[in-house]
């Protein structure tokens, strides 16, 4: 099923939608500010992308608005139904 999601391009569309929504609701700015803070605390040359992602990911996951999650879930359900037909 996951493969089908990718092959049909639906995954790419969902990603695009998600990106758009996250920017709209200010989530991206919030993450940007968090990243800035982490980099500042550790010093610019002492932080790798991996560490940064590691630190930010839990906070990022937690702060995605429920409405966006619901919208995406709905989209995926619709896809599943239409794919099953």
């Amino acid at each position: 099923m996951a493969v089908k999601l990718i092959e049909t391009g639906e995954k790419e569309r969902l990603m695009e939608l998600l990106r758009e929504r996250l920017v709209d609701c200010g989530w991206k700015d919030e993450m940007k500010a968090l990243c800035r803070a982490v980099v500042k605390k550790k010093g610019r040359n002492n932080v790798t992308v991996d560490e940064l992602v590691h630190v930010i990911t839990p906070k990022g996951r937690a702060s995605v608005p429920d409405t966006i999650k619901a919208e995406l879930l709905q989209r995926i359900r619709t896809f599943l139904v239409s794919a099953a037909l």
Partner: protein
Amino acid sequence: MSPKINAQISPQPCPHLAEFRRTSTKPFLALHSCLRIKPPGGRAALRRDPDEVPRCGACGLSSPSRLYACVTCAAVSCHSTSADDSSHAAVHAASMPPGHQIAVDVDRAELFCCACRDQVYDRDFDAAVVIAQTAASTLGADPPPAIPSSHPENLRKKRRVDYRPWAPDLRERALIGSCSGPIAGDAADPSQDLPRGLRGLNNLGNTCFMNSVLQALLHTPPLRNYFLSDRHNRFFCQKRNNGDGDGGAAGKRNGGNNGNKNARICLACDMDAMFSAVFSGDRVPYSPAKFLYSWWQHAANLASYEQQDAHEFFISMLDGIHEKVEKGRREPDSEGNGDCCIAHKVFSGILRSDVTCMACGFTSTTYDPCIDISLDLEPNQGVSNKTATATSNHSCNGEADCMNSSQYCGTSTLTGCLKRFTRAERLGADQKFFCRQCQVRQETLKQMSIRKLPLVSCFHIKRFEHSSTRKMSRKVDRYLQFPFSLDMSPYLSSTILRSRFGNRIFPFDGDEPDASDELCSEFELFAVVTHTGKLDAGHYVTYLRLSNRWYKCDDAWITQVDENIVRAAQCYMMFYVQKMLYYKATDKQVAS
């Protein structure tokens, strides 16, 4: 993670990347054919064939958080950011001989070192991606259906100078009281509901080309404020010029005005006189004869009673104001940065052009001052005028609105023209450019953008096509839709470069994108010069927007019109003013 990548501080490569670059001759050659851009102008990704679903070679997962392709052997491995999770990319890097640490994120086309577990940057790699992206965006008919770029507000730092109210002190109040009187004629005037300064201009024999432009200039807020606040006083100007400059410039003009030795040609003085007359409250049509005469002196080649091109007149008269005002001053040549004279202060902007070598990605950048922007009408999309007017009745203030309707019904729009103007364009094989890096002539991509916005943006639509080979000219009557409010931020160099290069290293030595331009990118339409009829026998009319009403200025006749008439008109020149100036102007009108 250096935030200043675009500003030329390229990060040091990690030892693994440095080693990889040293040992391989054509490091990223194999990648070029795998770069996919979806949709045109969109993100870069890596796929061996377009429909490939990449998966980790070790565990078969097709959608872990990240997938990396090794630049040495093309093996695809998954990667997880937490140090304790398994990372097949790290395993791959460790189990292979040196050179397999560097990998590419298959969904982002960004370089990563699996040993350092950090993003790495490389000029040549970024150049390859940028060329692929730019090439993709020029192939398709149009860039992607523009997800309205919702740059959050706080990204555009608002750094304006604050407005400070001014109230006269006692001495000043006394001075104002004793030296001025109330402006006469408002109470009994039947045309009192007309905004101040609205006065017809008599046609002096095929001079509607001049009247139409003058009406727009008379109501250009910063220009009007300049003259009405007496910044170019014609009496002082004439006196000063006669006083000190009799030798030089005056010597050029001999004869002609024997009777009146005071009359030195200064277009700014004539503008000053015209502003006084037009804003005097008198509504009887005014004859700009003195101005016409002065302009003839300035542009001798255009002096005739034939119909002229309004746009040529506009350029030539601004040039005239510049020249005469400049003569008195000894300042170093500041033309172009817009600080020289009122004409340039108001209308002057700076265009940026980037020419990118298609072979190596090297880009050379040039800046040119511009006083207006001439736009080509979009190629014929074969739509009848009926559809065009139908959508134009539709309220279409929002940019996105216009863009959508243009996509659905094929109407040409001003925003469409601007998009085309700033789109990367592949120059033909006959226009090869000498690339400084390759040291040979190469095919290139050219992209225009706006480096600095003027206070007032004038757009000129190229309706008159002159073909030198066939020795004929013709007029394009196609309808063009234009918004009343215009956001110029998508056409700014900073926006265009950001969307083109993202966080990749610029493959050239241009300077950094300038964010200061984003401050005032919102514009309001205040004048539209229209042309009806044929090439030589046509007629120019101007629509003015004052206090949010529209007025038609047809030589001596002024009438209020519905905005739908304006929307449906055949625009030739559009004048937009920065929004903050527009609203101040409107408030003032209402208050007076």
